[in-house]
């Protein structure tokens, strides 16, 4: 609707110009033939009727887009009000402090206002219009902008793809401004749109009113004129008593209706006049004019033109009649005119539209014109016509914007004009590659062969990102597969880096340890060999290259996705502090090479090293000669712009441009850019490497190593392990995320002797969706998957009661294992008939870690945690450091959701997506919001992984994920530990902590406050193994589960679930410590809350209780009733 209305409005406004011009011409040429003047109105009519947006480049009218203008005005108003509102709320000084994030690295305390969060909550970004590059992104992102999404990598990725520098949004420096500006712009646009929509409907109503009125009148008149009598004078003349003069009625068959009271002598004149109208088709024109008027009823000058048009018609007719008469007769005519226009006559049609009456329209003017009628010279008419035509050209059509006036550039410019590279240089510096490496290299990346020491695995990078590295041992270069994370601890010792380089000549791996900031050397079997002494202060490595005895290292100082200040972007280039180092492999001597502006390095293990850089305002490709340690040749390339990664093969650069999912090539000889691959997948910025003539890259979206053969343009894909499910697998496991597997796939295969395939969630599928799909697969009897790993979602109730799973007690070992668990757990996993339907992968229980001193300082008693409601009562009295009451009923929901455990309603889950949880976290300490969520480099947060290394280099996995962010040990009252694998972290084994984790040590562990006396503490089970009763390989599945169960017990990754202390591996648990005992006690008394009721139930009661509408007993009773109903209906 708004488009139509927009058009109408535009045309209406433009018509003003035409009308003005026509009126001026009219003024100038009023002495000429009136017919001409009518013709001018034709122009107006044309303009009004011409809806097609045609733009004339010669028009002098401006081209405006009304909607945008309105949006702009709204935006400018809003923009002002937004910043002033923020200022008002938080005070100007505070605002600047937050925005100027740089200053705040040291004094975090002062920025404890959750400014951004508060303002964020009220601002929505509608992604569907914003991210047009990839429509699937809008679903991902279309929600209240959550800065603290736990699914950060998707978030960053989506922003990156859309060209929004992710950093800018997530940190204080201009964050508020940037984001609010964006949002304000968006919302302004939306507002303008909706405004126009509304106006459009109002307009439509008006139009229908007018048109309806016109039609109604036509019908009414027709009815009234039925009584008219045909007149013998002419075939279309009728007598009627409806009028005292005459008029023309009818469009298709126009008839002249004469009144009875018209005198004989006047009839002649009148008839002539009316016949003239018919001849000129005035009835048509008037009708059309009326229609146009009704379309533009709100435009005042259209009314003016309508009225004047009406008059002009009359004048023209008069003139036509008079032309034929002599002066005497003219006088008679005038008299007739006057006589027949007495106002107030009993004329039914005294004020009509759409009818052409005789008389009444501006009699004075008409008489005057009759009097003044004379024939005018031709030139006058000619001039008038010329003016009319020029009006048409100049005014009728709106102007077009200047851009369109530029000559069409034909194809999208692919010509790169600024490459001036001579043949000779081409040969010398970009020699033709004639390698015979076939895409068959990919085959070696495939996981299969033990002898090749191939390990495919997923790695959790610093930001929860996954990296696959694969080693092609039969090739000359490659990436290396590393397993990291909880699956295989022995490999955790390799490094804390995401880059490895394989030196084929020395048969070793180089990596960069981001903690010690040194280059380390490992053997092919991941045994640590040595460490080079030189310290390289960088964030991470982009590329390495070995030439002779030197290792060239391209480092980057800032994280592209990190939280630090956004560097300036110039021409698309962002300086991440790239530096090129040269290290001698003999003596470890480190030297920084003074080359500025490097973006990426391309190395094919021999020959020249190519550097893609940005220097002096232009992108260029540099040829770096290792023997001379300097750039020997440089080609300026402008059109490729900033790239994520680039490699050089022969005379072509293959690169992945920054903002598109394509692989492009730029031919240095011709300068032609071609797009080779579309929908390239998400490319981490460094994951491209070259091998003779094929490019290896990592498609992070599908987690595949792909090889692109530059000769024939074919893409071969390698398989990441987790996507590898094929016919030969003995057992297939379906799991949400591959790292949920407590034991790595390789170990599973090794220990069980079977080939294990893993089917896991594709990147673009929501976890919940995947869970549900798995569930449906299970219940539908899909034979292809043998083992499902599911959360204990509501469907598990079904599993428990109906046994839609293969009973695990077909294996004696599994019966044994099950018996080792706490009763609450082992019983939970049994159906009423005693069959074991599942095996828990990991068990966690929520505990509270409270700080007794702070609690005392806050004036509360230590036993506030004994039950939920008393805790809430106590908390109602506490203010946070800002003096704001931290209590809100949201706490209730959060705790309740713990009890409910895995609510049906995703929104009440413990995650940063949940605004309640966020609110809860922030009230405890708001300063951290400035630095984003858990994936951050904020010094107080520590690394954003679940583990850290202490000073001895021992890896510890952290138990707390979100709540460890409550750092300030002086005022934090408590936080909930929601992943209770305390023991695995070495939290107990290691006594010395880094600064921030000391706080945890001072806490005291309490069980979660109980809902009521007889409401047992719940233990949440994260994941359950379930064997598909319809799977093809049930027996194998059982065997595998036996293996896994044992490994879980040995590696202690399962959490606290064993009754017997002896079952805990002492390597990972310190069973003598108090904390272990506390948590053990808690969990031993707990029940498994395997399925959640919808958060609704609890929320209603809790809300009402907190508002004071009901008392505790009623709330509890009601909740229990609902739970009972849920279980038993």
């Amino acid at each position: 609707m708004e488009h139509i209305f927009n058009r109408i409005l535009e045309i209406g406004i433009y018509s003003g110009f035409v009308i003005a011009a026509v009126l001026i011409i009219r003024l100038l040429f009023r002495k000429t033939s009136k017919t001409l003047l009518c013709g001018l109105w034709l122009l107006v009519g044309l303009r009004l009727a011409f809806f097609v947006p045609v733009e004339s480049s010669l028009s002098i009218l401006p081209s405006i887009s009304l909607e945008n203008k309105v949006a702009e005005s709204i935006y400018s108003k809003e923009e002002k009000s937004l910043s002033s509102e923020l200022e008002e709320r938080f005070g100007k000084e505070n605002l600047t402090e937050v925005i100027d994030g740089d200053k705040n690295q040291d004094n975090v305390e002062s920025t404890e206002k959750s400014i951004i969060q508060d303002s964020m909550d009220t601002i929505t970004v509608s992604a569907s219009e914003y991210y047009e590059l990839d429509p699937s992104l809008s679903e991902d992102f279309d929600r209240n902008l959550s800065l603290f999404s736990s699914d950060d990598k998707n978030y960053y990725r989506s922003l990156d793809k859309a060209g929004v520098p992710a950093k800018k949004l997530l940190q204080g420096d201009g964050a508020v401004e940037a984001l609010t500006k964006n949002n304000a712009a968006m919302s302004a646009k939306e507002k303008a749109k909706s405004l126009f929509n509304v106006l459009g409907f109002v307009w439509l109503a008006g139009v229908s009113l007018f048109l309806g009125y016109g039609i109604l009148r036509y019908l009414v008149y027709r009815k009234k004129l039925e009584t008219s009598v045909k007149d013998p004078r002419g075939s279309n003349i009728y007598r009627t008593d409806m009028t005292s003069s005459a008029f023309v009625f009818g469009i298709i068959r126009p008839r002249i209706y004469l009144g009875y009271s018209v005198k004989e002598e006047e009839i002649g004149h009148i008839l002539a006049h009316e016949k003239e109208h018919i001849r000129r088709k005035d009835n048509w024109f008037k009708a059309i004019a009326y229609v146009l008027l009704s379309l533009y009823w709100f435009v005042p000058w259209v009314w003016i033109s309508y009225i004047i048009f009406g008059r002009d018609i009359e004048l023209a007719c008069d003139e036509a009649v008079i032309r034929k008469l002599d002066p005497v007769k003219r006088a008679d005519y005038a008299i007739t005119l006057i006589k027949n226009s007495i106002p107030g006559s009993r004329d039914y049609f005294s004020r009509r539209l759409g009818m052409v009456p005789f008389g009444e329209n501006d009699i004075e003017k008409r008489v005057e014109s009759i009097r003044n009628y004379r024939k005018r010279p031709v030139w006058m008419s000619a001039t008038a016509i010329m003016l009319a035509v020029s009006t048409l050209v100049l005014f009728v059509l709106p102007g077009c914007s200047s851009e369109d006036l530029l000559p069409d550039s034909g194809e999208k410019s692919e010509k790169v004009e600024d490459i001036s590279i001579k043949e000779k240089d081409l040969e010398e510096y970009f020699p033709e590659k004639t390698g015979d490496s076939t895409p068959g290299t990919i085959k070696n990346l495939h996981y299969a062969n033990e002898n090749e020491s191939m390990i495919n695995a997923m790695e959790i990078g610093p930001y929860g990102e996954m990296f696959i590295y694969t080693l092609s041992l039969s090739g000359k270069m490659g990436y290396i597969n590393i397993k990291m994370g909880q699956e295989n601890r022995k490999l955790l010792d390799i490094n804390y880096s995401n880059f490895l380089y394989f030196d084929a000549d020395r048969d070793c791996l180089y990596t960069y340890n981001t903690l010690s900031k040194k280059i380390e050397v490992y053997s092919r079997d991941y045994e640590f060999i040595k460490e080079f002494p030189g310290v390289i202060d960088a964030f991470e490595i982009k590329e390495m290259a070995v030439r002779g005895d030197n290792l060239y290292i391209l480092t980057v100082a800032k994280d592209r996705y990190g939280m630090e200040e956004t560097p300036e972007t110039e021409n698309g280039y962002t300086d991440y502090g790239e530096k090129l180092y040269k290290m001698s492999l003999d003596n470890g001597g480190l030297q920084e090479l003074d080359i500025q502006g490097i973006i990426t390095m391309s190395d094919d293990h021999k020959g020249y090293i190519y550097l893609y850089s940005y220097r002096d305002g232009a992108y260029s490709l540099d040829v770096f000669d290792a023997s001379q340690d300097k750039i020997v040749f440089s080609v300026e390339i402008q059109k490729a712009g900033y790239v994520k990664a680039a490699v050089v093969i022969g005379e072509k650069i293959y690169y992945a441009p920054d903002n598109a999912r394509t692989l492009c090539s730029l031919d240095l000889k011709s300068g032609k850019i071609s797009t080779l691959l579309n929908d390239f997948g998400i490319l981490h910025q460094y994951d491209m490497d070259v091998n003779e003539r094929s490019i290896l890259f990592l498609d992070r979206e599908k987690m595949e190593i792909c090889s692109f053969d530059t000769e024939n343009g074919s893409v071969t894909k390698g398989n990441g392990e987790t996507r590898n499910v094929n016919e030969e697998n003995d057992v297939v496991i379906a799991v949400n995320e591959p790292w949920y597997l407590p034991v790595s796939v390789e170990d599973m295969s090794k220990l069980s002797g079977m080939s294990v395939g893993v089917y896991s969630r594709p990147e673009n599928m929501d976890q919940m969706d995947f869970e549900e799909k798995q569930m449906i697969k299970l219940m539908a009897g899909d034979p292809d998957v043998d083992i499902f790993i599911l959360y204990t979602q509501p469907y598990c109730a079904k599993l428990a009661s109906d046994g839609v799973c293969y009973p695990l007690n077909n294996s004696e070992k599994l019966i044994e294992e099950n018996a080792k668990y706490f009763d609450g757990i082992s019983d939970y996993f049994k159906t009423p008939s005693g069959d074991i339907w599942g095996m828990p992968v990991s068990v966690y229980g929520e505990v509270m870690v409270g700080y007794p001193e702070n609690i005392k300082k806050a004036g509360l008693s230590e036993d506030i945690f004994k039950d939920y409601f008393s805790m809430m009562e106590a908390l109602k009295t506490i203010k946070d450091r800002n003096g704001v009451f931290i209590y809100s009923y949201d706490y209730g929901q959060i705790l309740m959701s713990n009890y409910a455990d895995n609510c049906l309603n995703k929104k009440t889950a413990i995650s940063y997506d949940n605004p309640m949880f966020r609110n809860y976290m922030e009230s405890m300490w708001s300063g951290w919001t400035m630095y984003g969520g858990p994936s951050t480099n904020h010094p107080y947060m520590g690394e954003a992984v679940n583990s850290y290394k202490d000073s001895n280099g021992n890896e510890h996995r952290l138990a707390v994920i979100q709540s460890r962010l409550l750092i300030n040990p002086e005022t934090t009252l408590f936080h909930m530990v929601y992943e209770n694998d305390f023991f695995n972290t070495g939290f107990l084994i290691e006594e010395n902590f880094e600064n921030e984790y000391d706080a945890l040590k001072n806490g005291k562990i309490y069980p979660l406050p109980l809902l009521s006396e007889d409401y047992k503490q719940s233990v949440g089970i994260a994941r359950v193994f379930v064997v598909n009763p319809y799977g093809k390989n049930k027996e194998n599945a059982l065997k595998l589960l036996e293996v896994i169960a044992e490994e879980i017990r040995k590696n202690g990754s399962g959490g606290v679930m064993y009754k017997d202390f002896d079952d805990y591996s002492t390597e990972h648990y310190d069973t003598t410590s108090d904390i272990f005992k506390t948590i053990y006690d808690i969990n031993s008394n707990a029940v498994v809350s395997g399925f959640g009721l919808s958060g609704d139930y609890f929320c209603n009661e809790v809300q009402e209780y907190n508002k004071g509408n009901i008392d505790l007993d009623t709330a509890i009773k009601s909740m229990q009733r609902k739970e009972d109903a849920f279980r038993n209906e």
Partner: protein
Amino acid sequence: MNRLRKWLPFALPGLAGFCVIYIAPFFETTYYSFLSDIFSKVFVWFENYGKVLKNEYFRLAIRNTGVFLVAGCMSVMLVSVVVSYCLMMFLRNSSLIKGIMLVPFLIPSAAVVSAWTMVFDPIYFSYKIPDQGAGVFLAQVPVLAIFIWKNCGLMIIIINTAMQRVPDNVIEASKLDGAGAVKRLTKIILPTIRPNLLFALVLTMAESLKIYKDCYLYYKTDYPPEGAYFLQNYMNNHFAKLDYEILTTATVIFVAVAGIAVAILYRKDREYN
């Protein structure tokens, strides 16, 4: 036969559509009620029926629905009869008023529920009514109110129209014989319009099942208090859990009971005539 041939071309499309969309799936529904599980599709004979009939919540649902049916229909009929009689007596069967009374029927539930929550405090009705005894049915009061308010209009129109058709001479004669207003109503008018009353009753009963929408909107929960846990709640909750076999079993039971009840009603009515 002739008549049938005349009707057939007109009735057939509607009938065919009805069969395909409604009747045939109903048979499939009954088939599901004999399976153990929609996914494993094991044929178990009447186990589901046993399970459902024994289930305490099913019984609760039936009880509540039954009570609501009786209370609701009775109240609606009562109010409608009284009001239409008043219309006839005092307001000359004004069609304007009848039209106004129809308005509640036309207003969408969602628009009205918030107003009703102001009249009947949901806190009181959800939490503060007794758990046992007859007081349990207090929970149905808001729903009952909405039901009466909504449906009286329609019934009034039907009944009033019917009342108008009672021949005047009979009424006049009874007036002459000294029958008062109430006597006229109960002894003359109501017996005359019995078929219409029956029709209105059946309509009301059908509506009483549809009022579940308002019930859900009012209580905002899948598990309303004891007295207001209707059959539709039971069915919806099982639907959410994918227990199609229980759903369909309950449906079949309900259809059987309702069908039998209506058949008995009509049979009795025909007998009476």
